[in-house]
């Protein structure tokens, strides 16, 4: 879109009332990383990690390297809503950890399921590295506890955040408070960012991600909701140059009873693409088409080589990943 076409849109944007304008200005001052520390409205959270017994326990529970300092671990547990000063909160560490995590998880899914539709690929990344998954990881697997309020006397081993008041929607900035889920996810990301900084870069992060995040169980097969399976399958066959799919009855029982069962296979020429069962011929045919599409989209190469290993050692032998034409567009 050219600037000329954008201009009317810009003019049409409503002007914020004075109270909101003030808010926007204050947002701008707090989000930019300035050399001057921002004006503090609440007392600073605990800055004495050496007094906490929880931090060494968490350090050991995650099997972090001795080179990973307790102070960084403590900083990873301070969300930016608890302390707006970027020198003391986990904002920068979490940003670093998030980039690494998104890269490693997306690379893992892309090489494992190269034919996955984009929407499912994104959802699978979120299932491993989204807020909800990382919150589960931090709270229910690592056992990170949450401080009630980020006051000065609080134990440095607790996650510190300003809680969102009940019934309020989270704002653009953390000043109004955040949900525990969001803060916990940022703490997990920040811990991973700390591993990158202190434990020797990408190899350590890869190892940690493999052990703690990619080892979690996810059924990608159950994330599909295919609206028009038969149409999509015939389009797929046309695109790939296969013969158009035909449904054939494999077995049936009780056609005239109230509990009929049909088993239908979908064939392209002589090749069986998928098989499904159902209480009616239509249901069985649809299920067969869904199974055929899932078999196509969930193709997984036997030999998978992750591209990130070449970042560690450029001379290492690497087999490029399979790249698919993409999902079928109807």
């Amino acid at each position, binding site marked *: 879109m050219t600037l000329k076409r954008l201009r009317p849109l810009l003019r049409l944007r409503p002007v914020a009332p004075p109270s909101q304008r003030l808010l926007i200005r204050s947002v701008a001052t707090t989000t930019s990383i300035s050399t001057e520390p921002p004006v503090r409205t609440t007392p600073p959270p605990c800055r004495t990690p050496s007094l906490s*017994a*929880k931090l*060494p*326990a968490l350090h*050991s*529970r*995650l*099997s972090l390297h001795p080179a990973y300092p307790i102070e960084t671990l403590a900083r990873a547990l301070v969300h930016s809503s608890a302390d707006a000063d970027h020198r003391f909160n986990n904002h920068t560490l979490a940003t670093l950890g998030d980039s690494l995590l998104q890269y490693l998880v997306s690379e893992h899914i892309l090489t494992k399921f190269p034919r996955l*539709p984009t*929407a*499912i690929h*994104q*959802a699978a990344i*979120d*299932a*491993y590295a*989204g807020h*909800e*998954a990382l919150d*589960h*990881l931090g709270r*229910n*697997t*690592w*056992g990170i506890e949450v401080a009630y309020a980020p006051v000065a006397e609080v134990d440095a081993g607790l996650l510190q955040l300003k809680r969102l008041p009940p019934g309020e929607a989270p704002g653009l900035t953390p000043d109004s408070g955040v949900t525990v889920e969001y803060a916990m996810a940022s703490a997990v990301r920040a811990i991973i960012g700390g591993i990158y900084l202190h434990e020797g870069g990408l190899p350590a992060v890869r190892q940690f991600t*493999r*052990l*703690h*995040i*990619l*080892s*979690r*169980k*996810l*059924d990608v097969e*159950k*994330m*599909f*909701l*295919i*609206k*028009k399976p038969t*149409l*999509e399958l015939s389009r797929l066959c046309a695109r790939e140059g296969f013969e158009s799919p035909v449904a054939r009855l*494999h*077995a049936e*029982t009780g056609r005239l009873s109230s509990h009929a*069962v049909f*088993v239908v296979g979908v064939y392209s020429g002589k090749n069986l693409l998928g098989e499904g*069962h159902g209480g009616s011929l239509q249901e069985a045919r649809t299920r067969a088409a869904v199974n055929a599409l899932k078999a196509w*989209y969930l193709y997984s190469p036997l030999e998978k080589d992750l591209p990130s290993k070449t970042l560690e050692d450029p001379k290492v032998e690497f087999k490029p990943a399979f790249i698919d034409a993409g*999902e*079928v*567009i*109807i």
Partner: protein
Amino acid sequence: MPVKVLPAVSKAQNGVGAFVLQCKRLEFNYCDAAGSSRGMKCSDRLFLKHCLPQFAKQNPAIEMHVAPRPSKHPIIRGVYINGREKVICVRNLEHNQVLKKAELLRNSSGLQLRKLRNPVQSINDSVRGIFSPFHGPKHAL
């Protein structure tokens, strides 16, 4: 777009990949005066003085709390990642018996004790699939 997403969240499988000890805190309570805390504190082979430092060193993933609990029997309380607590009363126990109880709490997963009726529990689908009478060789009567 024909393919829609059913959002999901990955499930934890502790021990597949990394193993995280489920006991996160052990609290040791004792009474200075009462005789039931003898093995915990008052005899010449004190648990808190001689066994606990080594036990804590062997289990760095567990946070150890020691606190008096006057005029009460001594207890050990285990706090677990799943949010549950387990308490064992160690009244009149010797220091090595107290250590056994502490190890019991350390090794526990924090789940409630339950009878496992099926020897195998898994969140994975069966490799063989569900039996189907429509497949395989036909049965002649």
